[in-house]
């Protein structure tokens, strides 16, 4: 643990300080629990409603990961296709940009009309919101193959497929894994947004119900659960990134 100070101590200290500050603010300004409950009240709510928090977290996690999985599959396919051919790039790019510009919240009602209230709109929203960065990153990675290296291989009679397989795809992997960190966070946002609009379960739905019942502690417990889940998912993808593209970090002298 060479960097334990900046990697563990500093973030831990900052987080604790933030919670303490929150607690002091609640007491100092005499905020009622219906506006901002104290951290301890939120912690209590987390324990008290643990079964609900737990099952809804699992639901949100499930829809997030399924949407994310779809985003990986389609993002990779589309990214390789776009990076492969200028024609495909030209054909798809305007539509993709337009598609990405549409706020996904606006799409959720359509998904609900098509698939009904439930799990599927959440999965699709997660997928739709998270696949764009994967596509763009994979395509960029493919497009950055050095022309001289292409010459070296093409002079040997390498086909375009050879060049993409041996150089393009491995080269785009750091971009791909880098985009996963962004994509997983977006997928998570997509799931929760969809759940707050129309779902039977999930953290978004739980918070919506808690709000309707003026259970502010539970709303905040939901926020806390979201934050923890978000960190866990991010950390997981960051770990995967480091594991699979260590060469990219080392080549730049970071790791």
């Amino acid at each position, binding site marked *: 643990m060479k960097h334990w100070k900046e990697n563990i101590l500093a973030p831990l200290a900052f987080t604790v300080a933030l919670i303490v500050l929150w607690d002091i603010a609640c007491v100092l300004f005499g905020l009622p629990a219906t506006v901002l409950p104290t951290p301890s009240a939120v912690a209590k709510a987390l324990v008290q409603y643990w079964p609900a928090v737990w099952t809804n977290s699992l639901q949100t996690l499930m829809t997030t990961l399924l949407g994310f999985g779809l985003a990986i599959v389609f993002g990779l396919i589309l990214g390789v296709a776009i990076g492969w051919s200028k024609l495909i790039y030209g054909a798809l790019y305007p539509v993709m940009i337009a598609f990405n510009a549409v706020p996904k919240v606006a799409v959720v009602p359509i998904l609900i009309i098509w698939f009904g209230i439930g799990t599927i709109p959440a999965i699709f929203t997660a997928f739709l919101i998270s696949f764009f960065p994967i596509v763009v990153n994979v395509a960029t990675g493919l497009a950055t193959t*050095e022309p*001289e*290296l292409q*010459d*070296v*291989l*093409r*002079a*040997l*009679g*390498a086909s375009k497929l*050879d060049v993409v397989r*041996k*150089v393009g795809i*491995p*080269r785009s*992997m750091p971009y791909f894994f880098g985009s996963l960190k962004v994509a997983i966070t977006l997928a998570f946002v997509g799931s929760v947004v969809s759940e707050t609009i129309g779902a039977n379960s999930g953290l978004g739905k739980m918070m919506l119900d808690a709000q309707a019942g003026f259970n502010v502690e539970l709303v905040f417990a939901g926020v806390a659960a979201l934050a923890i889940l978000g960190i866990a998912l991010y950390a997981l993808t960051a770990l995967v990134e480091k594991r699979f*593209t260590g*060469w*990219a970090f*080392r*080549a730049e*002298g970071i790791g």
Partner: protein
Amino acid sequence: MMNAGESLVVLDHVSMTYGHGKHAVKAVDDLTLTIHKGEFIAVVGPSGCGKSSMMKLISGLKPTSEGVLSIEGKRVTGPINKVGMAFQAANLLPWRTAVDNVLLPLEIVEPHRSRMGREKAAYRHKARALLASVGLGEFTEKFPWQLSGGMQQRTSICRALIHEPEILMLDEPFGALDAFTREELWCMTRDIHQSRGVTAMLVTHDLREAVFLADTVYVMSDRPGKIVKVQTINLPRPRDLEITYEKPFQDLVHELRSHIGKH
């Protein structure tokens, strides 16, 4: 060796143009020359005059616009895997070790490509031996970021040689190296040429490098590149670095210098 070997590459009034119509850029013009088997030629000339383009022509990466280019009597119409190329940037794959980088061409070129699966061990052995022959015996399992610039360049040249090409093409391969490393790699290149009898084409801006390594130096004019001077280098082989300090060598360098950039 000199020009005694049979002719390998023949260019007959070859020119090459990039683009069409009003965007057309003529890169090289009216090249007529013969490269003999085992000969070492160097091409020098001002920046942008078409030296790299000439290399791309001979390797079949770019088609000729006019004239005829043939290798071993056959007209070149596309890439022929008889060449190995190395450039100023080593362009090693950062996710592969030195030996795996050297093996890359064998994963492309037949018949090695289909044998790769079965004879992986034999091929690795061959790649390691090649790396060892350029002084990298202890670095075969290192990644590019663990190698110095000179070592990366050696590895890149090994990659160009592994499939035993007929012609080794070097495009300013030592341009990014410091003077001492550069001279070491001159000697390495000299030894490779000597021991393998490979035909070599070197593009360089360094006239001393051209005179030290080559049998024949071609001087090109500004774009579109034409050959304005052919200089035979009759210095006896094997050449030692010492000769670069002697008068005959320096006279040749001066002579070549006087032909650059004045046409």
